[in-house]
């Protein structure tokens, strides 16, 4: 498979891993955050932790859209869809995310009209096919998915499709990185930057991380070799005492981003003054709302949204895990009350969430190792 196999070549990967071992100074401990959930998933899936030296530690970042969505927003969306004339549509990613009364899938089993769509334009098609119903698209994601939401609303407006609205939960990545860097208990050396988001926003928005915060950042692809190469690039910067933005994912990410996508986002969305992130709290100017000119397609203005606020169970330490202060297994609920089948915190829901990834790919391996060789 082109663009996949060449980035999974075992020989090249072994060589790159050797390069990492050569570059990592034994006396130093490196804490590198991979911002994006896609990277977290790939790191576990390909067992990359096993081939990194023990002093190169990867910390999982906030870049999992499902994980940072407050439970109250899910409750709000599902509350509106209690109306039998409303169809609730969302990506498959959302379907198992628990609200206080259960996930969208559980609501579907109880009779709610819940549909999995593969893009917001499919949700718009659903609206055209069901003129007697109102189709709500529960939009989640960073700048990766926001342009397709924007284009869909532009199309709905152009075609005058009135039985469609977007429940906008789009967030932006830069304020989340800032919140993590501002966190007093955080000590990070460098960042593996998000690949998909950067196809839209380009590399410039990260420049402050290097110039003001003095942290190297490398925008990375999602194949094993991409991630390892990015770590090599970061270690080289750290070795030479540099901090700059580099682009490892040049085959996809243009330095300036995607202008057409940014234009569509600017046409439809504006920054909200503030937005709640699960685990991180309220972050100012960190999310997208829908402009007045598209108010007719804004679920939150078309309907009376209950505005539910749900605090996470006190024992769940999602925030600390999300910021990289705690490892998933250090949370009190991990693996006992909170499992992928019965998630308490959102990090356990998405396979890109660090807790689910850790649980699925590492947890039992670690348990067995500690059983086999008691410390």
């Amino acid at each position, binding site marked *: 498979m082109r663009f996949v196999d060449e980035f999974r070549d075992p020989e090249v990967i072994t060589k790159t891993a050797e390069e990492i071992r050569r570059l990592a100074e034994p006396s130093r401990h490196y804490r590198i955050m991979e911002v994006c959930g896609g990277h977290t998933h790939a790191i576990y899936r390909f067992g990359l932790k096993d081939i990194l030296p023990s002093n190169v530690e990867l910390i999982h970042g906030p870049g999992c859209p499902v994980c940072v969505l407050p439970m109250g927003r899910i409750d709000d969306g599902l509350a509106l869809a209690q109306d039998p004339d409303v169809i609730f549509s969302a*990506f498959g990613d959302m379907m198992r995310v628990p609200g206080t009364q259960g996930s969208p899938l559980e609501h579907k089993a109880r009779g709610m009209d819940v549909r999995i769509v593969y893009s917001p334009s499919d949700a718009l098609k659903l609206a055209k096919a069901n003129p007697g119903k109102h189709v709500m698209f529960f939009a989640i994601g960073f700048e990766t998915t926001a342009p397709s939401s924007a284009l869909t609303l532009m199309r709905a407006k152009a075609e005058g499709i009135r039985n469609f609205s977007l429940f906008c939960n789009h967030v932006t990545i830069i304020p989340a990185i800032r919140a993590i860097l501002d966190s007093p208990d955080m000590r990070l050396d460098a960042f593996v930057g998000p690949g998909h988001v950067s196809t839209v926003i380009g590399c410039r928005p990260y420049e402050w991380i290097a110039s003001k915060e003095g942290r190297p950042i490398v925008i990375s692809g999602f194949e094993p070799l991409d991630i390892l190469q990015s770590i090599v690039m970061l270690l080289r910067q750290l070795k030479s005492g540099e901090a700059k933005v580099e682009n490892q994912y040049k085959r996809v990410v243009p330095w300036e981003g995607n202008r057409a996508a940014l234009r569509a986002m600017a046409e439809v969305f504006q920054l909200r003054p503030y937005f709640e992130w699960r685990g991180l709290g309220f972050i100012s100017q960190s999310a997208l709302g829908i402009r007045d000119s598209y108010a007719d397609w804004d679920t939150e203005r078309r309907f009376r949204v209950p505005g539910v606020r749900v605090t996470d169970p006190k024992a769940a330490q999602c925030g600390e895990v999300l910021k990289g202060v705690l490892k998933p297994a250090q949370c009190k609920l991990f693996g006992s009350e909170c499992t992928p089948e019965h998630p308490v915190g959102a990090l356990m829901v998405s396979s890109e969430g660090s807790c689910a990834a850790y649980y699925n790919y590492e947890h039992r391996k670690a*348990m*067995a190792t500690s059983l086999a060789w008691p410390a």
Partner: protein
Amino acid sequence: MAGLKPEPAAADAPAKVRFRDPQIEMAHGAGGIASRRLIEGLFAPILFGSSHEPLGDSATVHVAGARVAITTDCFVVKPLKFAGGSIGELAINGTVNDLAVSGARPESIVATFVLEAGLPTDVLEAEIRAMGEAARQAGVAIAGGDTKVVEHGQADLMYITTTGLGSFLPGVHVNPRSVRSGDKVLLSGPIGDHGITILLARGELDLDADLRSDTRSVFPLVEAMVREAGPGIRWMRDPTRGGVATSLNELARDCGLSVHLIDDTIPVRDTVRGACELLGLDPLHIANEGQFLAVVAPEYANLALNALCQTAGGEAAVMIGEVCEQPAGSVLITTEYGGSRIIDMLVGDPLPRIC
């Protein structure tokens, strides 16, 4: 619920119902961890008591002194027809395969139809013909059946339940508890074809691929393998819903050992791999309808593999790993780079990841 295994129907101490979910969700039928919890936590304690055998693909019953394999399976497929097969053909081969991987020759099948009022007769006729043809090819007799019709909207066109009887092949006895560390894991061919074909056939994705379901009877392959390596065969399973990952996790839990797989030995067609990459799915969790897994004692592994490879339809059979002591109860896969990860059972239905 393929194959609960009472031998005989239990009259022993009642076991405790452990199933606490307030209602049935789709995940309870998806063949993964929730299905297992439902069966082990609710059905088994009430119906079989505390001493039931591990859940297999079919049950063993005694009829007039003879051991007979019996299995039943309900088919709810959407759409009814897809590239490579249809519900009628699946209803035969699914049951044939459950008997085959229990080490039994499929002998006869009875079928029950639940039909939705308004179902076009030509659709029904096509499925009856598909059943007849599949039964003829698999060498199994359709001995009888029953038909019910429900109101329009009370079912999705048609459901078929088939129950099959089989006679055990001499010289083979499959039981997960006979599996030992060092045993080899064999796979009959490429995985994921059926699940991805169905996903694409539902038409919700604007994706086209040149792909067909792998649905077929695996009995000829099982028979060839039993002939050459019968005494060495410890366990077999057709990895349908939940895929190879779920079947092997069930084995690991039932035998209390670990299954270690080698990633790059597992055959996956490029089209399946591509679709899985695109949708964020793992081919190991995707359903199959014409493949099976076998665990074979090491000294019989090459005999068994050769027997498969030399039988029509088994040319792509491979050894994909072995059974080890640790981590007990888990499936571990080693990637090409020497890293490893745990492969868990499927949780719920496989859902595509987009964002």
